[in-house]
């Protein structure tokens, strides 16, 4: 009897262990380990807000909580101008660094390399690099203007919370012309939904552009294809590549 009970207990533990293992999120240094190559499947980059199909965008339910970005009236006019000129004015067309948070939900992979003191985020698009500092340091005392902002993170349980400030104002938030000023402030929350899915949430505030803070949420999926890797995409060189033919004998 005793051995049967022990055996049952063992089996129960084993089964439970298996179930836990399937959902177990990877850890590094006692923290969730986001190392890997990630990409959204959403249509967020085409338009953060809900939209029906367009010539230049598949339809999407949007990723904005409450569906509407709360623009100030003058900023809304600018957004409309941006939207009308999107085929020419979207900075992505020049392959400019996408910015934060746009790089995260842009439909091209990015890779996270994680150490105790920071996370290095390399975006395939433009091969730009964002460092999320997790070494207890704070934003610089002197305000800077960065394409990707200045990112300082800390852990709240299994959630990585990142405060991002010091932006420049030449990036858009999507292809629909949603924009921000240098006063944008982004607070990100990164957490695993399961070992291969990140639930990415961000609060965006900018008193020059929006009437109140607003939230987005998008899932990021791990690339698990065999031998998948980032391929450097310095697309900003494409316009002048033609000036540099491979030297060859005449």
């Amino acid at each position: 009897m005793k051995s049967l009970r022990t055996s049952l207990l063992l089996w129960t533990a084993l089964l439970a262990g298996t179930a836990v293992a399937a959902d177990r999120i990877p850890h590094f240094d006692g923290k969730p380990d986001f190392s890997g190559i990630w990409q959204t499947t959403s249509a967020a980059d085409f338009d953060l807000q809900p939209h029906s199909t367009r010539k230049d965008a598949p339809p999407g339910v949007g990723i904005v909580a409450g569906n509407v970005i709360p623009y100030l009236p003058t900023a809304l006019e600018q957004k409309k101008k941006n939207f009308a000129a999107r085929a020419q004015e979207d900075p992505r067309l020049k392959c400019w660094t996408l910015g934060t948070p746009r790089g995260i939900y842009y439909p091209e992979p990015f890779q996270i390399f994680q150490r105790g003191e920071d996370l290095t985020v390399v975006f395939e698009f433009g091969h730009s690099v964002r460092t999320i500092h997790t070494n207890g340091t704070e934003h610089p005392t002197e305000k800077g203007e960065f394409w990707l902002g200045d990112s300082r993170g800390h852990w709240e349980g299994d959630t990585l919370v990142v405060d991002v400030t010091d932006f420049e104002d030449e990036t858009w938030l999507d292809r629909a012309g949603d924009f921000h000023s240098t006063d944008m402030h982004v607070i990100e929350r990164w957490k695993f939904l399961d070992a291969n899915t990140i639930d990415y949430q961000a609060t965006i505030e900018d008193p020059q552009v929006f009437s109140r803070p607003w939230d987005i949420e998008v899932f990021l999926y791990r690339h698990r294809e065999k031998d998948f890797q980032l391929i450097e995409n310095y697309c900003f060189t494409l316009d002048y590549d033609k000036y540099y033919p491979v030297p060859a004998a005449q």
Partner: protein
Amino acid sequence: MSSITSQHGAGRSRLAAGALVLIQAFGMSQFASAQEAPGQAAAPVSAPPAAAAQATPNIANPGIRWEKSFPPVTAGKWTGHRLPDGQPDIQGDWSNSIGNHDNFTDPQGGTPGDPVRRKRPLGTRAERAPSRVSDPADGQVPFQDWARAKQQEFATGFWNATKQEYIEPLARCAPAGIPKSFMWHGYEIRQFPGYVVFLFNSGTRIVHLDGKAHLPDNIKLWNGDSRGHWEGNTLVVEVTNNNAKARFARTGEFASENVRVEERYIFDNAGKRFNYVATFTDPTVYTRPWTATIPMRRYVAGDAQDGWHYEVPLANHKGKELVADHVERPCVENNGPFGQVVGAAQ
């Protein structure tokens, strides 16, 4: 444009399209000045006035930064600190110790045809650092005849850019490529299980340590495709898939798309230096394989920022220890090249 000052003062600022031309000219003018011997006036080079005014390099103590010779580093065992995954820990900030990319085979000799008159003769060749070409012994890249002519054409065209192709791609913000990235400002190495990552002033390289095959041949990249492994104190990296668009220096040395580069990064166990020793094999351009050697030294938090080798500010934090703060190094599409095309652009 006032933001340029803070870009180089504190290493943080906006870097918008059109601004990079100033930064690159600025960086070069600092370098050209710092390259001179102590006591010599800073050469203005071709930097715009605003940038030139900021170019007040610290040339009081050039020390190891502009050394004329350097010690070999012997390949062998690694006895220094290791990372949890077993890699030798060589993370941090590094820069080459002999010169920039003005001249590949005469690192302290300036670019031939440079219109800026130097106030002091360069002296004899023996008074300057040796060629980066360590094999063959004559210090020259063993170009085939046609390739030598092409290289000379680039070198001549650099200061008289009558064709778009004479403008170095780096001046347009392209990645500096291999090996020029190692002669262009300081850079950072970060290590992760399975990877060594180089963050250059212009461009980023991800070296894969997992032994998987190279990318298919028809993918061509500015920085190539890098597969590496550790042999004791030496990181060995094989690079293929090069797009052959970058030049090695302003003197126009180059490879073709067929080049295979075997890089050996040989680290001293004290962690202060390494030598970059790379063998270039490319039968379409060279008469034989040849080897480049570029010496490097480490910089650490608290070292003086010099606007070129080490541009890393200190982090803002409550503790007392010095923490290096690595901020973004963006390079965006930019059509204000350092070397303007003269006459009618082609």
